[in-house]
C-alpha cells in the first residue's frame, strides 16, 4: 500500500507540474481572452474532479456500504475521504471560477448556473462533513453519512435544473457570459486533456492517503479493543 501511495504521489506531482509548465508558458494565449485563457488548464479540471469524480465516488461508496452484501467499513471510509478531498476541490473550483469571472464580467461572483450549483453542492457536502463529526457509534455514523451522501447525490440533478432554469430566466446565461471554455485546438487541447489526467491522479493520490489515515486510525482502535476488553474484565476483578 505504501508503495502505491508514493508512486501515485510522484506521478501526480509530475503531471501537475507538466500541466502548469505547458499551461503557463508553452501554450499560446487565446485570440480574444489573451493570457486569461491559461486558467482553462485549471478550472475545468478542478470542476470535473470535484463535481463528478469526488461526489460520484462518494455516492457510489455510500450505496455499496448500505447494500447488505457489500457492506464494509472500508466503503464508508472511502466515501468520507472522497467527500473531504472533494470539498477542497470544490473550493478551488469556485475560487478559480470567480477569478476567471472577475476580468470577463467585472464582478467576483455572478449567479452563473454552474457556479451557483457548484456552490450549493459544496455547502451540501459541508453538511456531510458536519454530520461526520457528530460523535456516534462507528456503524451508526457510517450509516447516517452514507444516507446523507446519497441524498446529496440525488439532489445534484434537481439543483442543476432548478438553478439553470432560474439562472437563464434571470439574466440570460448565453448573452452575458462567454463560454468559459473557448474553442481550442492543437497543443492547447492536449494540455487541457493533460490537466484532467493530472488532477484526476492528484485526486486519487489524496483520497488514497486520506483513506489510509482512516484505516490506520481504525486498525489502531481495533488493537485497542482487545486491550480494552482485558482492561474491562480486570476492572471487574479488582472491584
Amino acid at each position, binding site marked *: 500500500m505504501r508503495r502505491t*501511495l508514493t508512486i501515485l*504521489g510522484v506521478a501526480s506531482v509530475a503531471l*501537475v507540474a507538466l500541466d*502548469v509548465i505547458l*499551461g*503557463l508558458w508553452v501554450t499560446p494565449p487565446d485570440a480574444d481572452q*489573451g*493570457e*486569461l485563457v*491559461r*486558467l482553462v488548464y*485549471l*478550472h475545468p479540471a*478542478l470542476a470535473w474532479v470535484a463535481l463528478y469524480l469526488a461526489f460520484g465516488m462518494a455516492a457510489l461508496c455510500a450505496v455499496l456500504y448500505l447494500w447488505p452484501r457489500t457492506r464494509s467499513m472500508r466503503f464508508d471510509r472511502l466515501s468520507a475521504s472522497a467527500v473531504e*478531498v472533494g470539498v*477542497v476541490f470544490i*473550493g*478551488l473550483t469556485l*475560487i*478559480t471560477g470567480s*477569478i*476567471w469571472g*472577475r*476580468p470577463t464580467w467585472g464582478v467576483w461572483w455572478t449567479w452563473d448556473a454552474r457556479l451557483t450549483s457548484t456552490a450549493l453542492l459544496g455547502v451540501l457536502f459541508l453538511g456531510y462533513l458536519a454530520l461526520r463529526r457528530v460523535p456516534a457509534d462507528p456503524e451508526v455514523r457510517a450509516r447516517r453519512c452514507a444516507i446523507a451522501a446519497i441524498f446529496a447525490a440525488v439532489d445534484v440533478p434537481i439543483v442543476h435544473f432548478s438553478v439553470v432554469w432560474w439562472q437563464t430566466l434571470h439574466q440570460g446565461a448565453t448573452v452575458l457570459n462567454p463560454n468559459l471554455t473557448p474553442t481550442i485546438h492543437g497543443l492547447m487541447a492536449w494540455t487541457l486533456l493533460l490537466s484532467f489526467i493530472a488532477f484526476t491522479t*492528484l485526486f486519487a*493520490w*489524496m483520497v488514497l*492517503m*486520506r483513506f*489510509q*489515515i482512516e484505516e*490506520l*486510525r481504525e*486498525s*489502531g482502535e481495533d*488493537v*485497542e479493543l482487545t486491550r480494552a476488553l482485558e482492561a474491562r474484565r480486570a476492572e471487574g476483578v479488582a472491584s
Partner: protein
Amino acid sequence: MNAYVAAGYVISLGTLGAYGFSLAIRLHRASKRGRREVSS
C-alpha cells in the same frame, strides 16, 4: 503574465500543496501511532 492567471495558479497549487502536505503529516502520525500500538 496576467495577474489573475498568476493568482489562480498560486492559490490553487498553494492550497492543494498545503492540503497534500497536511495529509502526509497526518498519515505519518497515524502510521507511527499504529506501529507503536502493535509493538507495545
